[in-house]
C-alpha cells in the first residue's frame, strides 16, 4: 500500500446524548484525493473537525506522519500541516483581503519596530494569489468588496499558505459556481501531484467521482467502507450511504415528454438587470428544466416568474381557473396557486427562528381566515397534515425549524406549498445540500405532482438532475435562452453544456 499520511484509530465523539462519531478507523494516503461522503448526521463533518483540530475526540487517537497528533486548536493544526476550509463564511469583513490571509500571523511582517508592514503583507498576498492562479484579486482591497465566492477563494488561498500536507475541503463546493469550483479542483490536483493529500467532502456524487481516488462512506457515525472510484457504481455508493437498496429508479424512467397543451405560466419579453428579452411558457403537467451557469440569469428567471423581481419591461401571466391574470408580486402569485422554493433555503425560503407550524401555514393564512379570525386548531391541522405528507422528521410541529437537518428543512418548504394546494411550483436548486434519502423523496414527489397534472419549473445547477427529470430543458446564457431541448433518451451532458458556456 502507498504511504499512509494520516491514521484514525478508534476515534469517537459524542455531544451529550448524541453520538456523532463512533469508533472510526480510517487511513488516508499520500498523493491521493479521498472523498468522504455520508448523509447529514453521518459524522463526516465531526470527523473532519477532529482531524482539523477544531474539536477534540472523546476517545481514540490520530496518527499524523507517524506521530501521535493532538492539536490544541485549528491554528496549531494548520501549523503542523493540516488545513481545512468549510462551507460557511470564514473571512472577516472590515479588513482587507491581505489582512484576512495573514490573520494571526502578522508577526511575519513586523520588523524591529513591531509595526506590521502592510506593503510587505500585500506583496506576499499577491504572490500567493499568482501561485494559486487568482491574480485578478487585489489584496489591498477590503474583503467585503468581493463576492461570496471570491471570499471563499481567498479562504482557500489562506489555507494553502501554511503548505499543508493534508487539506480538508468540507462541502465548500456547494456554495461555489463553476469557475470557483475549477479553481478548487486545480488546487486539489496540484496537491496530489506534490504528493500531498486532500480529504474532499461533498454531497455531489458526480463531483466526488470525477476528482477522487477513493470514496469513503460514513453512516450514523460509523465508518462503512471505502471504494475505489474506478471500480464502483453510483448506486453502490448510494446504497452504502442509506444502508438499504434503493428501489425504483433515481430520476424518471419514462422517455415521453407528455404534458397538457394549455399554458399555465408564461413570460413575454421580460428584461431585468440580469435577463434580456426572455419569453417562454410552461405547459400544464410539464416539468420544465432550466440549466445554465450560476450567473446566466436563470435564478433571476425563477424570481421573475414568481413576481419577486419586477421586470423592467415585459409581463408574467398565469392561467388560473380559466382566466389569465398578471403576476405582479408574490402575494398575488400565491393567490394564483404558484409556489416558489428559493435556492437560498435558510434566508429566503424559511424563517429559522419560527416553528414548523408557522412556516408551513404562512402562505395559507389567507385561506384559513374567517372574518379576520384564524382558528389555531385549523392552522395546526393544516401544518400537521403538510408535515405528515412530507414525512418530516421532527419532534412536533412546534419545533423551531433551525433544529432540523437540511433535508427536513426543505421538506418544510415543500410542505408549505403543498398545503397551499399550489398548482405551479418554481423550484430553484431544490436538492442542493440535501442527503440521498431526502433527495430520492423529492424526485418521487416531483413525479407524483406531474402525474397529478401540476406543473413544475426546475432550475438547477446539477445537470444530471435537470436532464433526468425534465420534459423540456431551457438553457440560459448571459440572460437569454440560448437553447431548448426536448426530453429524449441519452441526452448527453456535453450536448447541453455546449450552450451554457
Amino acid at each position, binding site marked *: 500500500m502507498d504511504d499512509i499520511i494520516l491514521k484514525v484509530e478508534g476515534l469517537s465523539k459524542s455531544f451529550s446524548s448524541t453520538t456523532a462519531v463512533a469508533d472510526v478507523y480510517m487511513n488516508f494516503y499520500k498523493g491521493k484525493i479521498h472523498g468522504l461522503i455520508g448523509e447529514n448526521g453521518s459524522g463526516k463533518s465531526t470527523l473532519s473537525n477532529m482531524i482539523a483540530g477544531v474539536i477534540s475526540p472523546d476517545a481514540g487517537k490520530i496518527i499524523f506522519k507517524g506521530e501521535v497528533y493532538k492539536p490544541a486548536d485549528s491554528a496549531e493544526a494548520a501549523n503542523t500541516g493540516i488545513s481545512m476550509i468549510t462551507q460557511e463564511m470564514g473571512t472577516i469583513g472590515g479588513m482587507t483581503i491581505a489582512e484576512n490571509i495573514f490573520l494571526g500571523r502578522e508577526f511575519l511582517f513586523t520588523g524591529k519596530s513591531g509595526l506590521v508592514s502592510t506593503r510587505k503583507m500585500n506583496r506576499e498576498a499577491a504572490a500567493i494569489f499568482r501561485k494559486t492562479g487568482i491574480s485578478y484579486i487585489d489584496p489591498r482591497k477590503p474583503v467585503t468588496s468581493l463576492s461570496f465566492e471570491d471570499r471563499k477563494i481567498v479562504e482557500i488561498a489562506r489555507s494553502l499558505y501554511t503548505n499543508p500536507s493534508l487539506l480538508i475541503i468540507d462541502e465548500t463546493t456547494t456554495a461555489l459556481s463553476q469557475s470557483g469550483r475549477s479553481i478548487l479542483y486545480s488546487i486539489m490536483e496540484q496537491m496530489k501531484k506534490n504528493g500531498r493529500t486532500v480529504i474532499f467532502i461533498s454531497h455531489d456524487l458526480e463531483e466526488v467521482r470525477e476528482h477522487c481516488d477513493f470514496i469513503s462512506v460514513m453512516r450514523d457515525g460509523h465508518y462503512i467502507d471505502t471504494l475505489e472510484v474506478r471500480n464502483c457504481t453510483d448506486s453502490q455508493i448510494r446504497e452504502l450511504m442509506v444502508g438499504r437498496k434503493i428501489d425504483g429508479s433515481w430520476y424518471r424512467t419514462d422517455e415521453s415528454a407528455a404534458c397538457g397543451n394549455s399554458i399555465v405560466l408564461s413570460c413575454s419579453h421580460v428584461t431585468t438587470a440580469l435577463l434580456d428579452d426572455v419569453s417562454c411558457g410552461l405547459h400544464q403537467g410539464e416539468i420544465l428544466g432550466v440549466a445554465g451557469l450560476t450567473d446566466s440569469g436563470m435564478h433571476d428567471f425563477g424570481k421573475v416568474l*414568481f413576481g419577486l423581481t419586477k421586470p423592467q419591461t415585459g409581463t408574467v401571466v398565469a392561467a388560473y381557473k380559466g382566466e389569465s391574470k398578471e403576476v405582479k408580486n408574490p402575494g398575488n402569485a400565491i393567490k394564483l396557486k404558484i409556489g416558489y422554493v428559493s435556492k437560498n433555503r435558510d434566508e429566503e425560503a424559511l424563517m429559522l427562528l419560527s416553528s414548523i407550524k408557522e412556516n408551513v401555514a404562512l402562505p395559507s393564512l389567507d385561506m384559513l381566515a374567517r372574518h379576520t379570525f384564524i382558528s389555531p386548531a385549523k392552522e395546526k391541522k393544516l401544518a400537521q397534515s403538510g408535515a405528515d405528507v412530507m414525512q418530516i422528521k421532527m419532534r412536533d410541529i412546534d419545533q423551531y425549524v433551525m433544529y432540523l437537518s437540511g433535508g427536513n428543512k426543505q421538506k418544510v418548504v415543500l410542505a408549505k406549498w403543498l398545503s397551499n394546494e399550489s398548482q405551479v411550483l418554481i423550484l430553484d436548486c431544490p436538492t442542493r445540500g440535501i442527503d440521498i434519502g431526502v433527495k430520492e423523496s423529492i424526485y418521487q414527489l416531483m413525479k407524483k405532482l406531474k402525474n397529478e397534472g401540476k406543473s413544475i419549473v426546475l432550475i438547477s445547477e446539477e445537470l444530471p438532475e435537470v436532464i433526468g427529470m425534465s420534459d423540456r430543458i431551457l438553457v440560459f446564457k448571459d440572460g437569454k435562452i440560448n437553447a431548448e431541448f426536448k426530453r429524449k433518451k441519452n441526452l448527453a451532458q456535453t450536448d447541453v453544456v455546449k450552450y451554457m458556456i
Partner: protein
Amino acid sequence: MNYYGITKVVKGIHLSGNISERERRTLQSLFPFIGLLFIIIFFQVTTGGRMLTSRNLRTIFNQAFPVLLGTCGVSFVLAQGNLDFSLGSIVGTAACFGSLCAGGGLFFSLAASLLAGLLIGFLNGSIHAFFNVSGTVVTLCTQFAFRGVTIILGSAGLFLPLAWSWLDSVQLKILAAVFVFALVFFLFEYTKFGKYSRAIGAGSKAAVQSGIPLKKMKLLAYMFSGIMAGLCGFFALVRAGSVAPTTGTFFEMNVLLALVLGGMPISGGSAAKLRSALIGSAMFAFLANGLIIWGINDSIQQGVKGVILLIAVALSFERENAITIK
C-alpha cells in the same frame, strides 16, 4: 480559529443539551412571572409594607394604565423587529390636540387625539416603509419634531374642561384596559396582522416569499402604535387636567422597559407574545412606584431604569437569536 466552526459545535452541544429545547423555552417564559413576584415582594419588604396599601395600589394602577396601552400599541412594531421612539412625543402632541378641540365636545376631542396619533404613525410608517429608513432613525426624528410641537402648543396653557374631570376614574380605566387588551390580544394572536408581523420579525425575506405585503404591514404597525399613543395622550390630558411641554417625555423608554421586562424579545419574531405587555406593565408600575416610595431622586430613578433595561435586554439576547442569521 474558525468562528463559524465553533458555532456549529456550540449548536451541536446546545442541541443535545440536558434540557430539551421546549423545556428551555417554557422556563424562559416563566421568568417574567417570577420577576413580577420578586419585584412585588422585594419592594413590599423594603418599604415596610407601604407598597401594597389600597391607596398605593390605586396609584400603581394609574401608572400602569398608560404603559399598558402603549405596550399593546407598539407590540406589532416590536414583533416586526422594529422600534418606536416617538411614542412620548405623540402622547404630548395628542394631548395638546385633545385640549385644543375640547370645544367640539368629548368625542371630538378624543377623535382629535386619536387622529393626531394616527397621522404621526402614518408619517413614521411611510418614511420607514417607502424610503427604507430604519424605524429607529425615523421615530427618533419624529420624536424630536413633535416634542417641539408639544412644547410650542403646551406653553400656551392647555387645559381639560373641568366638566370632564370625571373621566379620570379607575373604573373607566379598568374598562378601557380590558377592552384594549382583549382587542389587541385578538389582533396579535388570531389575525394576519399579528402573525404576519411576527413572521416579518422572524425573517423578512422568507415572509415576503410567503406572500406577505411587507410595506403595508410596516405602515399598519406604526399607524397602530401611533393611534394607541394618541389614546394615551388623551388620558394623559385627563389625568393631569392640563398639558405641559414635558407631557409624555420618556414614555417610549418606559414602554420599552416594560415590554423587555415582560419577556418581549427586542428582535421580535415568533417568540413575541402579547402577555409581555400585561406582565411588563405591571412590573414597570411596581418598580417605578417602589423607587418613588424609597424617595429616590428623579434622575437617579431614570438611571436605575436604564440599567435594568440594559440587563434585561442582555439576558434576553443570549439565545439563538445572536448566533443565527437575521
